[in-house]
């Protein structure tokens, strides 16, 4: 059921469960909560249905609590004040129970084994992966770069530069006899070559004009 909230409306008989609901306009009809809660088996209910009084029920529980506390205090007095040899005797008699209680039922040991040790293993594992695999990949790529640079360098040195040198060597082998043959040392030969050059140059520069002049 939802009621629209009218400012100043009579809200008797409704319990606002959540103050914000009232703002949002959502209200619920009143419900008296049952005493001692209501779900499943309820010790208080069981007692109350026998003694038929709420006050008496409260007293029953108060007395039970006091009795348990008194028993504990009494046992403590007996064991640790009156006769201090008693704890050892009873610890020996109830050995397994005593051990289990002494070691807190080995809950800490269990957690230590199942959680703490496993997390520590995980930490070791993660660091191993990090330094070997991930950083290994980074260093590996650096190695690959260095390797390919070395291959390139050697290729350049022996193959590419070798090719250049081979061509140079080839040229030297082929051409050197010709050039060597030209180097005679005779001045008149050099002068002759110079004259030939001069004629050729004149021919190139003025050739067209000279031919044109003849044709004219």
């Amino acid at each position, binding site marked *: 059921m939802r009621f629209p909230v009218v400012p100043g409306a009579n809200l008797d008989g409704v319990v606002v469960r959540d103050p914000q609901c009232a703002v949002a306009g959502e209200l619920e009809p009143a419900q008296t909560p049952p005493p001692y809660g209501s779900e499943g088996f309820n010790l208080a209910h069981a007692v109350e249905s026998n003694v038929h009084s709420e006050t008496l029920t409260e007293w029953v529980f108060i007395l039970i609590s006091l009795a348990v506390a008194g028993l504990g205090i009494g046992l403590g007095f007996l064991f640790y004040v009156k006769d201090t040899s008693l704890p050892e005797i009873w610890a020996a008699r109830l050995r397994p129970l005593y051990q289990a209680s002494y070691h807190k039922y080995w809950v800490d040991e269990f957690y230590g084994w199942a959680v703490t040790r496993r*997390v520590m293993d995980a*930490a*070791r594992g993660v*660091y191993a992966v*990090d330094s070997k695999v*991930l*950083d290994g990949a*980074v260093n590996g790529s650096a190695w690959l770069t260095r390797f390919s640079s070395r291959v390139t360098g050697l290729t350049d040195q022996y193959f590419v530069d070798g090719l250049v040198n081979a061509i140079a060597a080839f040229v030297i082998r082929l051409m050197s006899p010709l050039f060597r043959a030209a180097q005679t040392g005779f001045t008149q030969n050099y002068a002759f070559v110079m004259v030939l050059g001069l004629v050729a140059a004149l021919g190139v520069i003025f050739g067209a004009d000279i031919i044109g002049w003849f044709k004219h």
Partner: protein
Amino acid sequence: MKSLHILSIVTWVPTLGAIVILALFKKDQSALIKKFATAWFGLAFVASLLLLKYDSAIGGMQFLEDHQWIPVIGARYQMGVDGVAVLLIVLTTLLGVIAALSSWKYIEKREKEYYVLLLLLQTAVVGVFTSMDLFLFYLFFEVSLVPMYFLIGIWGGENRLYAAIKFFLYTLVGSVVMLLGVLKMYFLTQDTALTAQIAPATLNLLAGNQEAAAMVSSSVQLAAQNGTGTFNILRMQAIGSVMPLGAMQVLLFFAFALGFAIKVPMFPFHTWLPDAHVEAPTAGSVILAGILLKLGTYGFFRFNIPMFPAASADEAYFGSFGVRSVMVFLAIVGIIYGALAAMYFVVKKDGDVKKLVAYSSVSSMGIVMLGLFALNPNGLNGAVLHMINHGIYSAALFLLVGIIYERRHTRNVAEFGGLSHVMPGYAAVFLAMVMTAIGLPLLCVFVSEFLSLRGAFEANPIWSAWGALGIILNAAYMLWLYQRMFFGTIDNPKNEKLTDLSGREWAYMAPLVIMSLWIGIYPQPFLNYVARPVNAVVRQVRPTYPIPGMPPAVQTPQRAAVTNQK
């Protein structure tokens, strides 16, 4: 506000200090240099406090600056911060002072170069948080690697060169892949078929205020006049709202995500971190853990989530799982995995305390990523606050490890025991920070972890359960570490004559303890700064998510399919 150039001042003051040191001081004046550098860091910190005038009632990007820079590609010198960036900047400048103060005795060679690099690093990091232009952001993001590389490589431990090169190359790989994404986004800003669909309301939502929106419009206009694209971050976020969920958006998401995930670092890209931390000098570790890791998470907050909203919320692109599922999975694995790996260093008899703290950062950053990808205000608030809190307590723990290392020249857990008898002050501060790391109520991490897990619970209770398991594991190894180091009797005669914290050490530890308590007891002033930016991001990702006091955003057809998801 515009003419004051507060952001430029906060960004470049450390560089000015570095120039002054280089020009005016001689190599052998180390006593003077360290005092001057520390004072200069103090100056930068005071300057950054001006940013706390950020008006969180208005929200959005403030303290704007806009100048022409490289017109041929449309890159502009644009700066602006929202509340999240303000908090991160103030954290950076605070840790700057602390890092300088903590190095006075620790650094015994090449002091001049050391403090110059420390100052340059601060400029780079603050620049990352102040940039509103993706090109400028990328520049600072990359430049921040260089001083750190030298800090580790010169003043680091035995294996420093390996660690320095690994740190540099690993993060460079990520950011170069990100560069491809940046270029694609740049070309998308020229795609008029796409940009024409952007609703003005989307831009207003992302910019947060009229002034910032006007700055975006003017840079779009200028770009159109010059025939270039624009690198304006808000413009790119707006494009995200009209980009269909497809291979392009998913690829772009992962291109950016790789760059940031390596920086965060997320599992499985984290292996550079323990090496870098172990080898770095104390101040290097402080900046690395406190600030540099946040560049990654800040990147997710500023770029991945608002720029690729459909991909960020996607849970079905790969069939049974989606982009968001991948990120959340990696975040959760990181939380558990980082905690277990950290635990290894107390399980093992002679573990390195610094490595333990380094791995605990991997776990903590997992919490941040989980909070971010919860994609609701609680999760994001928690994630942002956890960035700050992690900056406080991980920096403090590295400082504390540095303090004992200065006295004993070892960080081996087996060497210690019973320290509380000889160093009660040190033990008390260490305990405060261990409790902060665990997430004890009334200390800062409790608030941020609670918010992150509450956000994650709203998205999926199982995610939250995994996160909670990680927190238990964190508590386990932290308490165990504390017990092994501080309780019991002093077995090692070398520990008998240790001196307690000096005045200088108290001076730089106290602010961190106070901050932890302050955020733990009354986090509201800090959450006020981040509330509106966070709401804008949530609104961008999930246009229909109910946020009190915020109307639902414009629903675009590209987004309709995604927003029905949880």
